[in-house]
C-alpha cells in the first residue's frame, strides 16, 4: 500500500529510486534524532533527574 505507492511515485530507473529512498531515510532519521526525539524526551519527562518542576 504505502511502500509500493512511494516506489511508483519516485522517478527514474530502479537505482535512482533506491538512491532517493536512502537519502530520504537518512534525512528522516537526522530530523528525528535532532529535533523530534529530544522534544519527546523532554515533553514527556522521560529520564528526568532534577528535583522540583524545573527538570
Amino acid at each position, binding site marked *: 500500500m*504505502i511502500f509500493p505507492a512511494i516506489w511508483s511515485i519516485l522517478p527514474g530507473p530502479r537505482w535512482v529510486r533506491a538512491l532517493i529512498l536512502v537519502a530520504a531515510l537518512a534525512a528522516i532519521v537526522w530530523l*528525528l534524532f535532532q529535533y523530534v526525539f529530544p522534544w519527546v524526551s523532554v515533553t514527556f519527562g*522521560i529520564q528526568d*533527574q532534577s*528535583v522540583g518542576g524545573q527538570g
Partner: protein
Amino acid sequence: METVAEHSASADAAQPEAAPRKQPGAGSRIVALLGELMIIVGALLGLYVVWQLFYTDIEANSVQAQAVEELPWAYTAPITAGTVTGDEPQTIPDNLKLAPDTVPDIKEPKFGTTFATFYVPRWGEDYVKPISEGVDRHKILDKLGIGHYPHTGMPGELGNFAISAHRTTYGKPFHRIAELKKGDHLIVQTEDAWYVYRVTSHEIVRPTAVKVIAPVPNEPGAEPDDHYITLTSCHPMYSAAERYVVHGVLEYWSPTGNGIPQELMEVPS
C-alpha cells in the same frame, strides 16, 4: 492475508484468470495498510531506543568534553596517583588549605554559562565534567551535563551548592552516583579556586522533594549553618520515578595556582 486475497479474487469472477489478484479487495488492502503502519511504528520505536541509549551519549560526551576544553583554567590531567607517570603534580600545601568560613562570595553566572569543573576520584582517573548554570533539560542537562540549580549556593558558599545531572544517557555525568561512600571526595574547580567536599550521606526521594536542595538540606527555611554540596540524579537507572541524592560538606578551599588538591591523587578505598 493469502486467504483474504484469494477470497476476494474469486468474488471478482469477471476478471481474466491470468491476473487473478490485480485488484485485491478492501479487506486485504486494509490489512496491508495496517501491516505497513505497524512496520513504520516499530521502526520509530526502535530508532527512539537507539537514539536515547546510544546517540545521546555520543552527542553529549563530545559537547561536554569541548566545554571543558574551552575553559583555559580547567585541570584536565589524569586524577588519581597510580596513573601519573613521571613527576607528580604539585599539590596544595597545608598552609594554603583555607577554612570554609573564609570562602569569597561569587556572583551567580548567567544561565547557560559553564563556570566550574567537577572531579570525583571514585568515578575514575579521567573523570572531569563541566558544571553549567541552570537545570533546563534541553539546553543544559541534555547537552552540557551537570547543571547548577539557580539560586542555590555557589561553590564553597555558606548554604547548599546544588547540582543535577543524568545518571544514564546524555553522557551520564552521575552514572556512578550510587557508588559514592561516606568520606569520598567531591572536588570542584572554578577559575579562581578549588573546593574540596566530603560525602556525608545519601538518600532516595520523590521527584517533588525540593527540600533536599534547601540551604540546609531537608530543612527548608532554616538559616544556612554549613557549606553543603548536593548532587541529584535519577533513580532507579533508566527511570524518572525517584531521585538519588548525595549530600556533602566543604572540607577546605584554596585559591588556584598553588597546585592541585592532593585528594585528586588519592585512590578511593
